[in-house]
């Protein structure tokens, strides 16, 4: 069959990094296509997704978390969920998986040239953002300020930890890490956490004093947004993570003066085909698999709230 979009290409797992542990553990897989021709011809853009197969278990849609500026491999960060994600977590280096794609639209990085970029991520939501900020950082001169706000429940729930700590050291990107839980008090102690995390003023987050450049906080991501006070001037904000985090982060961005067409996010719907045929990922007349997953808040205003 020629051009069968349902037929995956075979890829070999080259590296597995355990990002977080526990019942919702995250692992990042570095894979490369077995077929040299496919390895060369497979191109993608930041924000696009791919359908991963564990043969015998099925398929699941995962966003490509690597940046297209680095060639020859793909990275996927997979959170342990059900059948296929569990099967993926059981694989070892050298094992093979199926990959088909890339699918969907991308973040319009070309349109954002010259702008200040703000990335607001929570949990596994950092996976789609990572492709975009690594891409922007590889084309550093094309963009203004680049700011990352990334939160997790505890320090051990923070993915891409080493990479984040390296980014903290750079002076061309502002990094704000945040943990939901204050350690030591409230009966919740994060064993791994070190000193030096600024506690958010819960009553008036705006009064929290972050250091310029890089800071570490304990507090919820939306509160950190308010504390950091990013300027809406010539800026784009992208927020991915749990729906509740996105909701409040977006509200706080709007209070700061961000408009709907300056704020982007990604949507998730259950998916099977990835190419707009199987029907299930529709919201109104759009199919998230091919028309999404990237949407601006002004685009979301126009579709039914059925996601």
């Amino acid at each position: 069959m020629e051009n069968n979009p349902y037929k995956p290409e075979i890829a070999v797992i080259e590296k597995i990094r355990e990002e977080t542990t526990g019942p919702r553990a995250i692992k990042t897989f570095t894979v490369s296509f077995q077929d040299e021709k496919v390895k060369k011809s497979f191109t993608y853009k930041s924000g696009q997704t791919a359908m991963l197969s564990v043969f015998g278990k099925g398929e699941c849609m995962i966003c490509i978390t690597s940046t297209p500026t680095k060639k020859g491999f793909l990275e996927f960060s997979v959170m342990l969920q059900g059948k296929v994600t569990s099967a993926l977590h059981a694989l070892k280096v050298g094992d093979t998986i199926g990959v088909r794609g890339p699918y969907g639209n991308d973040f319009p990085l070309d349109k954002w040239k010259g702008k200040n970029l703000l990335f607001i991520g929570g949990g596994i939501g950092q996976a789609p953002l990572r492709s975009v900020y690594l891409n922007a950082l590889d084309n550093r001169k094309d963009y203004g300020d680049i700011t990352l706000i990334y939160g997790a429940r505890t320090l051990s729930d923070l993915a891409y930890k080493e990479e984040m700590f390296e980014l903290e050291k750079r002076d061309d990107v502002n990094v704000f890490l945040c943990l939901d839980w204050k350690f030591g008090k409230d009966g919740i102690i994060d064993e791994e956490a070190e000193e030096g995390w600024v506690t958010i003023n819960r009553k008036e987050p705006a009064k929290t004093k972050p250091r310029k450049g890089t800071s570490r906080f304990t507090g919820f991501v939306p509160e950190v947004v308010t504390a950091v006070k990013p300027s809406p001037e010539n800026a784009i904000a992208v927020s991915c993570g749990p729906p509740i985090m996105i909701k409040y982060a977006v509200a706080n961005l709007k209070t700061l003066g961000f408009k709907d067409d300056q704020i982007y996010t990604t949507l998730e719907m259950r998916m099977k085909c990835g190419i707009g045929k199987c029907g299930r990922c529709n919201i109104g007349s759009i199919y998230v698999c091919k028309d999404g997953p990237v949407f601006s808040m002004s685009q979301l205003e126009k579709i039914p709230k059925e996601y």
Partner: protein
Amino acid sequence: MTSSNSFKAENFVIKKEDVAQFLKGLSDYTIYAPVQEEDTVLFKVIQNPDKIALHITNTVKSPKFVVLPQTETMLKVTKGKENSIKIDEPVLDEKNILFGIRPCDARGIAILDKVFSGDYKDPYYVKRRANTIMIGLACTDPHRNCFCTSVGGAPDSTDGLDMLWTDIGDLYFVTVLTKKGMKLVKETVIFSKATSENTRVMNKVHKTAHEKITEKLNADALPKKLENLFEDKYWDEVSMKCLGCGSCTYLCPTCYCFDINDIEYRDKVKRVRTWDSCQFSSYTIHTSGHNPRPNKENRMRNRVYHKYKYHHDNYNELGCVGCGRCITYCPVDMNLKATIKELAEK
């Protein structure tokens, strides 16, 4: 893939007593036609043309399964040594004839043609469809639930067909609509040119059939109307008795949603596609338990919106051909015709 525009339709007639001989001559093809078994009529592969039952207006299940099987193996995967993986695709070169398909069902397939082509071609559908010849049978006795004329169709619609046959007494009047259809006619001497008298009778039969469908619904108003009815209480009321059984979508000639799953046996895996239904809660539920369409009112609303707005937004035509199956076979008498009427009046 629909009837090629360049072809100029030609008219023939065939004697009813010669139909069996015509079909027997088509031995290169697998022929699907309506067959009666006890009190249901369904499209089945026929070996013996005498079994064909054309007396019933339409079959319980639509014949869409010939181009979109209810279950099909998409890929066969063999896991070998050292993580080697071999993927085989099916060979789909079986040639099919759909004999006696009703105009509404042919229009249903014409709708599917557009869905399965486009940005991404579905090679399984496209291949099967290219290998399928559709011989339609004009309706002379529409069922009480038929409403094709309200949704752009007609008892003698030719959309999607390669030939349209009309019962004109001892003869079938045969309008050949495509090259694919012409090839079958040319292969035999059974067909003769239609006379002007034959044409007159055919036109009369068509006219009578049109007149039998007395009700005209204002279905064309729906794409616009539905823009503002998403949050309407109507959906809670109208979906109250729905069982969520999915019969309406399985029998519908234009429903095409599917699921893909793996079946594993030792080192062999089959990746299988099966029909699915937007009326099931499992259709949209995430692993986390979150469901964007958690209740039957959300799901019924989606079915009606898909047919009468979303499909129209994307393809500029309604996604329903008015076959009436979802009305006739709903176990709790949900009535799409009534729904259309009520929505059009809102």
